[in-house]
């Protein structure tokens, strides 16, 4: 059961407010102590900001600031400002002050799911310092900028508007600026937050990100103005259904009572990659009447339908349109900029799927430059453009990277090698509730392996060219270092001037070594 399922179940059966549930189970969402909580707050706000910009075709400008308000009592403020689409004034109190209110609950790749995390951060701040959440926001073309101070009524799961103001939007600004005052341990989380920001800049090379905190300032300028293709909203794939989803989809039909669709129509309309023929074949195989009206289906039927849909192996693969990978070019740019590597190559695999969920694996290999040689390759993991910093040992990427025989690719450990993995999916199979490690799903594992191997073959090509260039250099150095001794000996033996031999050696080096070296270099560049 996912957390969401748990919450839904609780709401349904015990009448417990979701806000209250969160309040009681804050550690699940990553707010277990002041160090984790500060890191988590920054993450939630930054990810929200990125989603509010790039998903709408806006190049992100993100400003993050942490201030120590009362270091003795661990009171800090976190402020995150973006240039995104903003929040309409009438929605703002609910967006920040009501759990499960939001626009993100659609089947497509995004960083968060319906902004749960931000509300958690608001709740945590309120819980630890009693201070309201401060918001300034304007939608594009809005004449006004709206400011709110909001608290959450935990038992009723409703926002309490502490104050509300509006001002003229003279500069036509749009975006959201959020400030939270919370109990947080700056010295404990400083490095982790800096690392998080750095890695976010790597996976979002089209963003300007500024991060300021006591003793830290990181400024990442965008290295490209190209945004990845935004994800489209998709339909669920029949392989990934459960009864709850079926119920939701059925209840989504507006005139269910007057004109209920047939089971076959239902499948074609509501599911990804299902046409009339596919639907008929499946229903025949599953033992259903394609013409039965869906309002006539009982729970027992739904159970059977969900089970048979999962069992059926003839579905077409889910479409990858709800996914938004970074693409080889952007990934390469981001990795090169952040790691300052000598060589970077990236591979974006074709879409694949597991259990009805589409996914795309992207991998980058970075070699040399400022990367320090290590016994095992440095691994940087991302899922849906979110950096994963914890639980590396449990992640499927670590397993794959460690199982690769790097010698085959001319990489001799310890080597200055970094492997970047990015898994995009409408449902990333995380291990446990921490959402920091990806489980060993065979389909994903295979894709990661293939992606790394493809990139590694490119790395090998680069390294062998480099090796050849090195051979030329070594030859040049070896021949020229003995030139003086050779020329002097020949001058003595033949009783002639040493200079003529030095010149002859110089010519020889020019024609026999340097020209050949230049040819190799040219070949490298052409690739």
């Amino acid at each position, binding site marked *: 059961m996912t957390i969401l399922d748990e919450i839904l179940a609780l709401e349904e059966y015990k009448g417990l407010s979701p806000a209250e549930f969160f309040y009681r189970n804050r550690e699940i969402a990553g707010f277990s102590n002041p160090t984790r909580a500060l890191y988590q707050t920054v993450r939630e706000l930054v990810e929200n900001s990125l989603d509010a910009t790039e998903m709408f075709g806006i190049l992100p400008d993100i400003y993050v600031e942490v201030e120590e308000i009362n270091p003795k009592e661990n009171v800090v403020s976190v402020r995150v400002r973006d240039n995104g689409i903003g929040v309409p004034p009438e929605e703002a109190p609910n967006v920040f002050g009501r759990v499960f209110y939001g626009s993100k609950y659609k089947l497509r790749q995004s960083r968060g799911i319906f902004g749960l995390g931000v509300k958690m951060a608001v709740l945590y701040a309120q819980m630890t310092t009693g201070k309201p959440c401060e918001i300034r926001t304007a939608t594009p073309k809005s004449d006004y900028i709206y400011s709110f101070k909001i608290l959450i009524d935990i038992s009723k799961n409703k926002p309490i508007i502490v104050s509300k103001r509006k001002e003229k939007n003279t500069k036509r600004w749009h975006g959201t600026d959020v400030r939270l005052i919370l109990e947080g341990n700056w010295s404990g989380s400083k490095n982790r937050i800096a690392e998080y920001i750095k890695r976010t800049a790597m996976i979002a090379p089209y963003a300007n990100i500024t991060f300021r905190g006591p003793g830290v300032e990181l400024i990442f300028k965008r290295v490209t103005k190209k945004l990845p293709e935004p994800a489209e909203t998709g339909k669920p794939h029949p392989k990934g259904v459960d009864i709850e989803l079926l119920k939701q989809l059925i209840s989504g039909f507006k005139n269910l009572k007057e004109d209920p669709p047939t089971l076959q129509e239902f499948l074609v309309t509501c599911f990804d990659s299902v046409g009339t023929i596919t639907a008929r074949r499946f229903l025949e195989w599953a033992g259903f009447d394609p013409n039965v009206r869906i309002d006539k289906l009982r729970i027992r039927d739904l159970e059977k339908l969900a089970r048979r849909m999962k069992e059926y192996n003839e579905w077409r693969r889910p479409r990858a349109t709800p996914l938004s990978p970074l693409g080889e070019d952007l990934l390469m740019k981001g990795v090169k900029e952040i790691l300052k590597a000598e060589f970077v190559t990236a591979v974006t695999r074709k879409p694949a799927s597991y259990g009805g969920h589409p996914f795309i694996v992207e991998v980058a290999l970075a070699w040399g430059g400022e990367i320090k040689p290590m016994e095992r390759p440095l691994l940087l993991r991302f899922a849906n453009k979110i950096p994963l910093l914890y639980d590396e040992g449990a992640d499927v990427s670590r397993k794959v990277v460690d199982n690769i025989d790097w010698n085959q690719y001319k990489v001799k450990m310890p080597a200055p090698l970094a492997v970047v993995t990015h898994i995009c999916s409408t449902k990333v199979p995380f291990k446990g509730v921490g959402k920091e490690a990806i489980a060993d799903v065979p389909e994903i594992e295979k894709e990661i392996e293939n992606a790394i191997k493809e990139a590694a073959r490119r790395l090998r090509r680069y390294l062998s060219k480099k090796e050849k260039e*090195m*051979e030329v*250099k*070594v*030859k040049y*150095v*070896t*021949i*020229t*270092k*003995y030139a*003086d*001794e*050779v020329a*002097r*000996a*020949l001058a*003595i*033996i*033949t009783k*002639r001037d040493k200079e*003529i*031999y030095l010149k*002859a*050696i110089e*010519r*020889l080096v020019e*024609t*026999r*070594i340097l020209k050949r070296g230049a040819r190799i270099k040219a070949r490298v560049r052409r690739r």
Partner: protein
Amino acid sequence: MPLSDEEIIARLEELGKRVAEQLLKGIPPYLEIPVRTLKNTIWDEKNKILRLGPAKARREYLDVKSAKKFMQTLLMLSLIIMARREKDYPTIRDLYYMGKHTITYIDVYGRKRQEETWDDQRESNSVIEDIEVATGILREEMGIMHDAKGKIVGNIVVRSKGYLIDCSKMGSGAYAIPPNPDRLEIVKVEADYVLVIEKDAIFERLNEEEFWKRENCLLVTGKGQPDRSTRRMVRRLWEEFGLPVYVLTDADPYGWYIYSVYRSGSISLSYESEKLACPEARFIGVTTSDIKRYNIPRNYIIAATDRDLKRATELMKYPWFKSDAWQYELKLFLKKKEKIEIEALSGHGFKFLSYTYIPEKIEKKLWII
């Protein structure tokens, strides 16, 4: 006829001039040097000597692996030519120091580095030998000196630098064989044979007893593994005066190999066998079978080590140890796993070696080849 200094200089210069011409024509320069390894050593069955085979290696300047050797060879060649022109007689150690320069250069990573033209004398000695094989001139002929350790005593008179030296008038001492015996004029020899003794101490003992006077022979020692001048001296006595050569060593594979060096030449210096080897040199002992024949007391017998046994197995495979007599002795050694020193013969009294063992071996022709 020994080569004149002019001829030697001309032949040495020839080697360098070829390289100079290649370089000036824009051809990647190289030296061709015969290979001095066991693989390129040929056993000349007819003449019973080791010869250098036909394999040659190109030492190319533009090859990273051979560039340094190429430079070292030319460097050494220039030093030898200079010495010859100046009529100097440097030792191999002198040449090592004269050619030892520090080269400063920038490596592939842009760092300043230093390198010696050669790191130890083995490297400079090795290129001297390369120049010998490439030109066919021995280093003695090039006027290069080495630590000569051979000694000779007996009825022989030589002339060196105009001085007459009578080797029967050395008292308790002996005449030290000079580095280039070819420069000695052998004025007079009155002896029936040459006895070569592996060990200096035994040589001294026999000299003290005036064995050479009693037996009318010449005594020579090379103090273990003989140097080239000792071998050249023995070769001249055999070649120019027809004296039979007898060799006496310890009864172990190392002693036996020393005998084979006098007789056939050594693997590393096979290119000069023709000038150094004595194909008819006879081995009078000590053999493994002597342990039984002369009833050597147990306390003189030493157990052979694994290294001894391994060395004996190697000797058995060399073509110049393929005679029946030698195969028998080596097999017996491998079976008995026992060795003795020459001194073991003193088990029958100190006079046994000189009054019984040596004369009997020679008279009764108990030697092997």
